[in-house]
């Protein structure tokens, strides 16, 4: 079972904090990989808040191809951070050439596009680069989005943190998500590292989605840009969240109702039973199954945690005003926020969505049996 840790903070925090939490939970991951999502960035990236940032791993040739492509499309390179690696890679980590984080200014003509169209174009650009990389195996692109950096690598999280120098100030961020990977079903695959990301929405999971194939088939056929190339059964959680928010225009509170709908006894007495019945029926192919704890971050930097219908995975949220964290285990919380009021730690159960808004003031619990906020 993978271990997850995410934190949301009023003040910028070093990504190494999250890795330290993973280190505390080391019994639960086998060091087969780490994935990090950083947003609400401090440091130099904060100056380019509206410009897309490309995160990925490149060979020299791949980097040249990428630059040629981006220049050809009219992108203007701005700030660039290359993670200069120290010495040789730790055991289990393959040697790579360039870990790139590059800010781009989009082509001039994009300015006339509506925001939705710009978002679609950014996603298409990422997909094109991904396809180019798959073709020649010279680049892996994780994200291309404003105010988002993603880093993934195979190996032990702490070793990689040191190797890539993830404690550098340029990477300080207010929203950090990290997964220490326990490889089970699939071969060790860089792209299968969580978190997964699409259009400002990121999520990571520890668990196994046994309904993966029907959900993947359904999402792939919905004609939405980016619902493709699945590498992990958990990737569909990110896309279901995206589908909920962006395609259906519903709020985060509806997400749990889509992935694990209420059963009849609760539904019949729910004030929104008509809407929820419609949702349960029409989104039936998005119902997840198996043990899963999902932690996610929304475009507005809200962070949340939900559990599967049976609450088969551990998950805890706690902290103090200004700094909250979501963790697979409480020892992860202890590592990062030892001075919190532990009596207020909360373990979301099968009906709960635990939500921390970007102001980091409190943990809000939304139970499925509560009325839904008005859906816009």
């Amino acid at each position, binding site marked *: 079972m993978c271990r997850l840790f995410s934190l949301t903070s009023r003040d910028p925090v070093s990504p190494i904090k999250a890795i330290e939490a993973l280190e505390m939970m080391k019994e639960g991951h086998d060091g087969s990989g780490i994935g990090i999502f950083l947003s609400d960035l401090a440091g130099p990236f904060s100056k380019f808040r509206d410009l897309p940032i490309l995160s990925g791993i490149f060979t020299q040739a791949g980097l040249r191809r990428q630059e040629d492509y981006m220049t050809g499309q009219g992108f203007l390179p701005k700030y660039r951070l290359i993670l200069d690696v120290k010495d040789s890679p730790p055991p289990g980590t393959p040697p790579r050439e360039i870990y790139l984080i590059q800010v781009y200014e989009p082509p001039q003509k994009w300015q006339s596009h509506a925001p939705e169209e710009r978002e679609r174009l950014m996603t298409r650009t990422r997909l094109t680069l991904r396809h180019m990389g798959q073709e020649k195996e010279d680049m892996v692109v994780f994200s291309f989005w404003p105010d988002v950096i993603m880093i993934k690598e195979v190996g032990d999280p702490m070793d990689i943190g040191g190797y890539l120098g993830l404690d550098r100030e340029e990477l300080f961020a207010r929203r950090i998500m990290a997964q220490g990977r326990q490889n089970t079903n699939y071969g060790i695959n860089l792209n299968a590292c969580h978190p997964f990301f699409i259009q400002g929405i990121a999520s990571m999971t520890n668990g196994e989605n046994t*309904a993966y*194939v029907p959900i993947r088939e359904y999402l792939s*056929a919905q004609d939405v840009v980016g619902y493709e190339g699945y590498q992990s059964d958990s990737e569909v959680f990110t896309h279901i969240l995206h589908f909920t928010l962006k395609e259906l225009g519903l709020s985060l509170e509806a997400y749990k109702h889509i992935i694990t709908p209420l059963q009849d006894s609760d539904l019949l007495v729910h004030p929104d039973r008509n809407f929820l019945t419609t949702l349960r*029926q029409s989104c039936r192919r998005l119902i997840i199954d198996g043990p899963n704890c999902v932690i996610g971050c929304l475009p507005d930097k809200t962070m949340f945690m939900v559990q599967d219908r049976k609450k*088969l995975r551990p998950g805890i949220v706690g902290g103090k005003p200004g700094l909250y964290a979501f963790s697979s285990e409480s020892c992860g919380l202890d590592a990062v926020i030892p001075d919190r009021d532990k009596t207020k730690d909360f373990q979301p159960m099968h009906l709960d969505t635990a939500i921390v808004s970007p102001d980091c003031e409190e943990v809000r619990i939304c139970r499925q049996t509560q009325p839904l906020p008005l859906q816009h």
Partner: protein
Amino acid sequence: MQTNAAVTPSTLSRRDLPWQISWDIHTCTLCGRCTAICPVNAIEPGVFRKRSISSPAFGLKDKPGSSFSVYHGIRQRTDPGYACVGCSMCSLVCPNNSIEPVKSEITDMLRFHRDRAGLPRTRGGRRNNSESVLDQIKFIRISMLTDPALDAGRHEFEMRTLIGRVLSPAKAIKAQREKGWMPPVREIYPLLIGGMSFGALSPNMWEGLQMGVAYLNEELNMPVRICTGEGGCPPRLLRSRFLKYVILQIASGYFGWDEIIHAIPEMKEDPCAVEIKYGQGAKPGDGGLLQWHKVNKLIAAIRGVPPGVSLPSPPTHQTKYSIEEAVAKMIQSMSMAWGFRVPVYPKISASSTSLSVLNNLTRNPYASGLAIDGEDGGTGAAYNVSMNHMGHPIASNIRDCYIDLVKLGMQNELPLIAGGGIGKNGNLAANAAALIMLGASAVQIGKYIMQAAAGCLGTEGDRCNICNIGRCPKGITSQDPRLYRRLDPEMVAQRLVDVYVSFDTELKKIVAPLGRSTSLPTGMSDALGISDKGAAERLQIKYVV
């Protein structure tokens, strides 16, 4: 017969028949029960003459000679019209276990003589072939250590399915907000009792099934639904609250629909759905058939026909001349009859043309599903040739249709109901789960219910199969009160409940190890494997050896 008697082409010996009656003279009490109960008069009391030869020892006065005696026993008739069907009712009633039919191991000659007066063999039953691809499918994706296995006995399971046109999420939310029309959708148990008509089944059988279904719904909270088949519906049921558990079937003979239409204003509940039968797996391209033997006064009254005549439904709906007419207009008409509150879906026999029908339905907003009946489907009466040789296996047909829906992104919108041969060898839950994982939203069964809930004697070995002539020895498919009073409706209801409750446990025993409990695993093809490479490729599931 005498050795010099005339032999006709159809003169057969006992050995030429598929079943031989084995009778034990030493234990037989000559009570006559066996000859009384035989549904086809294959056995009769016999008077046998026996000659005894005496050959005294040499030198005595007595000369060699012979004497004659008479004994009584059971004689098996060899006339093709009275051949034993192997039902074993004689064995059932024999007090001393003195008699039983034995299946011949050699190819019988009877098959060449079952066309007297130019009438090919008709029968009820099934395809009489025990091969089953569904039986070969294994569930291979077992969650053990990669995630906690579920407990079939203690965890909660949500195994219901949807019948009805399910709108896409965006359309459904829009319709909800704008208070627009939402197609009716029923949440039901995924194992349906398929269409077996009042007429094909005896009144006791029908009553037992309806009682069992009502019990499952009202006492056990299992939303099981039963289809009427083409034969109308008893007037009291139409006007009762139990109608909501019933799927009304309309087929090309429209039998009973005068009564149904007239009952609409008096209905307390809407029916669960309306099934328009265009074809059935047992006899694709052929209409329903109720032979005159079974059309008594009651059946005739419910169907609105004169008694004592055979009722062959036409192979197609006579007023329709194209798929648009046949499907679109009929679906719309039936929907309109209940104010668009009742799902209406067609049932077809599995065929290489199934995809065309499906594609037509995807564009029809009123179509609520598609039921497909494979070649192993059963029937109360059909031509032998239709049953044995016509039709398409269900597994690949349902898979093709599901994959087609996946390509269109409509796999949640138009439910597929699979039928035909599910549980033909007794593996009901495994076959049903395999079809669901291949893409069916629900499965429907008929023969299995007759066997398990009523004791039907039919097997895949051409046993009994006389449903068509109303001589069912168990009273399941007979309209003769002397026969159907053998069947206690209460016991049928109880057995039906047993079948469903045990099926439910077995289904959970399959899905729990696969880590599924939150929803029915429709289309979970990654769980399936088969050791036949061709089948694996065709069904797009894993090849495992």
